[in-house]
């Protein structure tokens, strides 16, 4: 139930009370309200006697009873999501009423969060998309943002670490907004900026609203350039107590791995002379030994909630055990979330309090080492002939590492927030909100004396290794606001908001490690016992940083007859990170909307149910850079000999000062259309955006001399982007028992450009990104020239091979020449390098098909990425016989001609487009003829079921597409998994 419903509900109750008092002249009416299709009882339906003040709401069984004036003849029955209905009051009690569900969702009074408040979707003038649990991905989130991957046009969410339970997501709205600062959206949880995603369990999330455009995000000022994601958690509701239990169990299977030779195949290639390497006589599938075939993840959530008109509560307990496809790669966590609200002072004072804590223990040992194990000579073994682990200096025995080392993180994150709203005079509400988030963890590592790391350490051979590190962070937030809301002359709706914001963040870390233990008994629990400490070879470090943000903000919303909408926002914000000359920034925004469907010339077209045109312009900032970046600090330069022969730390300037350092500014214009047509069966939202990020922060090369350091962190460049976003919903079939709904999103990038990277003082003609890695120092794959598109791969152009397998490339005149004659200077007038692809996707699309038949529901979710290129680094490095270990099978087919060292060229650039059948869910809702069970739903979900792509490296879904350095495949990618999940939800 949304806030508005709560109001309705309270209002109805009020009416009921009045009605009761006037009972004498009244007649009794009672009845039951049910869904016309499913026959389910509907609770909370408003039943009012037309033309009177009498009304009631239905109880959990759909029953109502009210006393109406004798003159009343008609009941108006209304319920969110259903068409309202007038029913005649007959003499017969009870009256059975059936309601028809609305065919689409937009017809509901859909409320969205806009930051510091909510607004009816139909009145919203900026680009906001709301996703609710019905549309969440059901494959079991590892991070709350997994729930909405592919669901919001313009929002790219990529799991670069695959299904690693300890890996995060890379998130980006509408393309990169920064070169060196943060690109991710601001996360706001229940009003707290920089909310911690660890605190969110999927069953606690009520909704996720994504503010995509600058005008909507401007209220968050200097931290909102990446967009804003507002998460609202579930709250208690006025009504009978409810208990919900939901759980799932998930098993993952290896989906796809790079196709390397088996030991037998390797042996055959040695025999045939194609591989000039040694056969060590064993047959080992090294990857197989890292795979946790017994993985089983589970999640259990128990919540109970309820409340009265004055007080509501909700408590949620969550246990989650996530196990990765890799051994020693998991996470166990407990989350408790408590929420209370209370009204007092005759409802003029409303109090809210939330307390959430997440306690988790992550096993960070496994989940890596893939490249090493994929590429080992498969005739080697993890063991020596005598049964001990085989170690060598140039590789790591990853399997042994899992047995001989430990690495965990014990973390607790707690968030407490409280808010008080008070109605001062009619329409004027004052609020004070405060919150504190405490995040802390301890890391511990131990490597046995017999482990490879320990034995190969030559300072303390066989002396073990112990590490302990801790982290403590506090985020304080204090925000008083004043809101004034009123309607004048029934036509002019005004909402004004003013507020102050103070945020302070501080963190401290320390860590220590030691070697040279005499036995393995202490592990990391008695660090001082190692002998490395005494001789100065142990490591110790600590650090502490803080930063402060203060802001004043205001917002004015005006609508005329619900037809013409206007909104203005300002935020003035100061940050301690900014240089002394630029402590405060100003972030304005203005929006307008026009609900065309309220105009007569549209109203006459009956097929249009709703049509709104809106536009906005807003400025936001990005201050997601390091603390102290504007100060001249002295840094340690290593220890050097003092006159007495002892060594002490030396100090010199570590940065060039920049008192002018400030935020990056994003200026964004958004024009959008929202519509509902054909009896609300087709709904949609189309947005066009154009944005420019000015004063881009980056490490610029400063002229040396006269500056000491080669670089200065300063604001120079400009980045721009424009694009189109489409979201459609279509109720294809809605007949009787069968329903079919289609949701589709489509994002198209019109342009992504680095407009400039120079000013009078600093000149950068190009910038390179995306290290290729591997042997031979191939440099960066992406070169972005000033004025050109971002994400362009610049490299050599493959022209074939000489008869003996040496590379030939085209020079700038199109002549095939040997590598040694290729000019790789970045000077555009001489270089032989060329634009050979672009790593930034042109388009994203997703398609959800939801079917329902009686109690069954079925959902297919497809999503895809199009028009991007990927550098196939696994092929570059491991489909080349110059590598001495295991090789990709394609070495002997597609790549068989190469007899030369590694080279980066368009030979390895491939089309990275893909379409993925991300999820199929089949659910069944049980119906029990008991009032003790409200609902029981059982479902099965398959995730990552099929991928259609021409790309031949790793799963392209997990290759990063965000930032300015995307598109380089990961040789050590976490293996792509396919998972199956069984879930159960019970409500009573």
């Amino acid at each position, binding site marked *: 139930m949304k806030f508005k419903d709560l109001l309705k509900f309270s209002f109805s109750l009020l009416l009921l009370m009045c009605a009761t008092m006037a009972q004498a002249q009244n007649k009794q009416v009672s009845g039951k309200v049910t869904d016309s299709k499913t026959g389910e009882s509907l609770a909370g339906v408003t039943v009012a006697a037309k033309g009177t003040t009498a009304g009631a709401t239905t109880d959990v069984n759909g029953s109502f009873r009210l006393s109406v004036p004798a003159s009343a003849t008609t009941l108006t029955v209304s319920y969110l999501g259903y068409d309202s209905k007038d029913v005649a009051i007959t003499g017969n009690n009870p009256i059975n009423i059936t309601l028809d569900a609305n065919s689409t969702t937009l017809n509901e009074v859909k409320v969205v969060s806009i930051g510091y408040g909510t607004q009816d979707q139909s009145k919203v003038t900026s680009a906001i998309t709301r996703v609710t649990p019905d549309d969440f991905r059901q494959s079991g989130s590892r991070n709350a943002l997994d729930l909405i991957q592919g669901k919001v046009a313009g929002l790219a969410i990529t799991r670069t670490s695959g299904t690693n339970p300890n890996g995060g997501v890379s998130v980006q709205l509408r393309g990169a907004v920064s070169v060196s600062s943060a690109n991710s959206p601001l996360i706001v949880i229940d009003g707290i900026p920089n909310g911690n995603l660890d605190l969110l369990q999927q069953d606690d999330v009520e909704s996720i609203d994504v503010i995509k455009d600058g005008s909507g995000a401007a209220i968050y000022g200097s931290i909102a350039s990446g967009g804003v994601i507002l998460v609202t958690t579930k709250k208690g509701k006025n009504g009978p107590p409810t208990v919900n239990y939901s759980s799932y169990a998930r098993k993952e299977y290896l989906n796809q791995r790079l196709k390397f030779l088996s030991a037998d195949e390797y042996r055959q290639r040695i025999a045939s002379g194609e591989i000039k390497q040694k056969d060590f006589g064993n047959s080992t599938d090294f990857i197989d030994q890292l795979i946790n075939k017994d993985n089983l993840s589970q999640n259990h959530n128990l919540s109970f909630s309820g409340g009265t008109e004055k007080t509501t509560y909700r408590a949620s307990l969550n246990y989650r055990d996530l196990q990765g496809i890799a051994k020693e790669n998991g996470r166990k966590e407990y989350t408790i979330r408590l929420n209370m609200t209370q009204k007092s002072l005759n409802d003029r004072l409303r109090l809210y309090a939330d307390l959430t804590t997440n306690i988790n223990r992550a096993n960070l040992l496994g989940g890596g080492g893939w490249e090493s194990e994929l590429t080992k000579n498969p005739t080697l073994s993890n063991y020596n002939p005598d049964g001990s682990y085989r170690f060598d200096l140039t590789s790591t025995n990853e399997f042994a590492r899992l047995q001989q080392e430990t690495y965990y993180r014990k973390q607790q994150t707690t968030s407490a927030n409280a808010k008080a709203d008070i109605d001062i005079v009619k329409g*004027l509400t004052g609020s004070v909100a405060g919150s504190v988030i405490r995040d802390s963890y301890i890391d511990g590592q131990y490597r046995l004396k017999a482990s490879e790391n320990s034995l190969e350490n030559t300072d303390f051979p066989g002396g073990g290794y112990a590490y302990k590190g801790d982290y403590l962070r506090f985020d304080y937030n204090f925000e008083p606001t004043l809101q*004034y809301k009123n309607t004048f002359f029934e036509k002019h709706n005004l909402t004004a908001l003013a507020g*102050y914001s103070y945020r302070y963040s501080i963190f401290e870390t320390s860590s220590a490690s030691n070697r040279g233990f005499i036995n393995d008994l202490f592990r990391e629990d008695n660090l001082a016992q190692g002998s490395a400490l005494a001789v100065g070879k142990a490591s110790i470090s600590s650090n502490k940083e803080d930063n402060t943000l203060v802001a004043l903000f205001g917002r004015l919303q005006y609508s005329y007859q619900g037809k013409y909408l206007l909104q203005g926002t300002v935020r003035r914000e100061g940050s301690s990170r900014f240089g002394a000359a630029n402590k405060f920034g100003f972030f304005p925004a203005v929006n307008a909307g026009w609900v065309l469907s309220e105009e007569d010339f549209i109203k006459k077209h009956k097929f249009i149910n709703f049509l709104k045109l809106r536009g906005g312009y807003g400025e936001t900032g990005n201050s997601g850079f390091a603390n102290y970046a504007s*100060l*001249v600090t002295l840094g340690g330069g290593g220890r050097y000999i003092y006159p007495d022969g002892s060594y002490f730390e*030396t100090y010199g300037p570590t940065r060039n000062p920049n008192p002018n350092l400030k935020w990056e500014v994003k200026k964004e214009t958004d024009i959008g259309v929202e519509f509902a047509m054909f009896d609300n069966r087709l709904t949609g939202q189309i947005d066009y955006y154009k944005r420019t990020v000015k004063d881009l922060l980056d490490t610029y090369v400063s002229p*040396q001399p006269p500056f000491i350091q080669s670089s200065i962190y300063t604001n120079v460049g400009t980045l721009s982007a424009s694009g189109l976003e489409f979201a459609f919903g279509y109720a294809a079939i809605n007949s009787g028992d069968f329903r079919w709904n289609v949701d589709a999103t489509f994002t198209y990038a019109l342009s992504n450009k680095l407009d400039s990277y120079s000013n009078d003082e600093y000149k950068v003609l190009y910038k390179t990104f995306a290290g290729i890695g591997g042997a*031979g120092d191939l440099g960066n794959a992406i070169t972005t020239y000033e004025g050109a598109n971002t994400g362009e791969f610049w490299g050599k152009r493959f022209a074939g091979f000489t008869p003996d397998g040496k590379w030939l490339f085209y020079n700038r005149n199109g002549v095939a020449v040997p590598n040694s004659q290729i000019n790789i200077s970045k000077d555009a007038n001489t270089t032989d390098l060329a634009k050979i692809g672009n790593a930034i996707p042109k388009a994203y699309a997703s398609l959800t098909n939801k079917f329902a038949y009686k109690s069954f529901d079925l959902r297919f979710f497809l999503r895809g990425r199009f028009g991007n290129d990927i550098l196939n680094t696994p092929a570059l490095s491991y489909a080349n016989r*110059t590598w001495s270990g295991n090789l990709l099978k394609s070495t002997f087919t597609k790549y068989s001609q190469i007899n030369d060292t590694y080279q980066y060229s368009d030979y390895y650039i491939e089309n990275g487009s893909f379409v993925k059948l991300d999820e199929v869910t089949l659910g069944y809702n049980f119906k029990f003829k008991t009032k003790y069970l409200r609902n029981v739903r059982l479902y099965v979900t398959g995730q990552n079921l099929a991928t259609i792509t021409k790309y031949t490296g790793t799963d392209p879904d997990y290759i990063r597409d965000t930032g300015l350095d995307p598109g380089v495949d990961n040789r050590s990618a976490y293996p792509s998994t396919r998972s199956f999940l069984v879930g159960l939800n019970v409500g009573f």
Partner: protein
Amino acid sequence: MKSKLFIYTALAAGLLNSTACKKQLEEKAYSQLTTDAFYNNKNEVVSAVLRPYTHANAWVTPSGQDGWWRPAELSGDQLAWPTKGRHGEDGGKWKRLHYHTWFNDEGGLNNAWSLMYWGMGLCNDPIENLGKRDIASMGITQAEKDSYIAELKLLRAFHYLKLMDLFGNIPVVTQVGIPAKPETRPRAEVFKFIETEIKDNIAKAPKLSRTQLGRMSQAGAYAMLVELYLNAEVWTGTARWDDCIAAADQLINNAGGGQNGVMALDPNITDQFKTTNDLSKEVIFSIAYNYSVANFQPSWPSEFYHFKQQEIYGGGRNGNDGIVVIPGVYTTYDASDLRRSNWLLIGPQVKFSDGVSPVLASEEYNGSQLVFVDNIRKNKSNSTVSNMSEGEENSGVRFNKYKLGNQVPGPGGVPAIDPNYNNGDWNIYRLTWIYFAKAEALMRKNGGAANATAVQLINDCKKRAFSDADWATRAYTTATLTLDELLAERGREFIFEGFRRDDLIRFGKFNTASWWDHSPTAATRALYPIPQQQRDLNGNLAQNPGY
């Protein structure tokens, strides 16, 4: 109501600008120092004075970074970093150094420029800060203050000397940040600036002594003068042979002090390069490492060592299998020359720990014994093509001049663990080099012919590399010590020490001679280009001729 709200908002906005609010936004650095809060006691002063030395490790030694050393050596006829299988292509940078085909915007050269001017700035900064503070606030005496500033000015001159060596015409800046866009000055002017700085400060600087270990001193200053004058003809067009001899004599006569008593040649070819080379008598200026107490260790293993080198010498450090000796250089050493057997590594490698079991290779020869060979070609495929692209993991004779020492005992406990493992210093100047410079100056003055003094100077150095029995037939005479022979002997003595490019230039070979995979190039290649990246930032930087 509405208007009131706006008034309150405006009021609050005013408050936000108040000083109290700005104060709230001042940053407090907990784990970093700021310059204003520094230089309050002698230790802080010393730690600022010493900062450029740890930095110099990065650019003056073969540190694994593109500093001064790589362009000073890898463009010469002794050392190269060939592509070895999948390793070492590195964007072709090593080939361009070898072929002299570097670009105007060569990343490595820009990095060298940047590192060296950074180091120069690390001198300017404390010179400025010491200069403007009174001695009481720093807790030092006036004499100490003068001495520190003189030392820093000499060290700054050293930076300019090496910058001028690579780039020729460069800007000279003595204050941090001023002027904003300094102009190129012709090499002769830069030369003059360096010479004047040295002469003005030499007397105020401390003499070399045990307490000045690893730092610039009067001895280092004289060595800089020797280098300046030795190359004066190339650098300014005017020969300064007599000045060169005079400066060299100052060192030979111990006028600049010595690190361990009176400065003198070491009696052998190992004292200068072993782990306790801080005890060398001939070292003039070095970067002083100490791993035992400070974790400050030599940086060069990454340049020279094989991926599994540690097994060869019984330590813990390996490298990138990078720089090797060009084929044929090895055989320019006489078979009885101790420098060949002691400073170079060739042939099948066995484990230090037992002296018997083979060190196993890890790339082309994975699982087989590692055998360093005096050729660079794909022996595994029976190829005879020898060039910068066709190496294997074992190609080329290897660096073994400096020693890291051993962390594990040798077979039967001999040798025992070296307590000074990883502590050896890197010599920037040593007396042997001064001897060679003086001999060369004498010969140049003499129309290229050696006199008895010159022969004696070279023989004093060379005879340490031979047994007494072998020496009799290897000693130079005024007839055998020609200029060509001097260049060859310089190569043998100073291999890996960073002087080869200068030597080839001074002897007129850099652009005219061919060696291994290198053919002659334009004379203008004797100077590196001013990095285009720097010229983009500072329009007052002129490009060198020919680029």
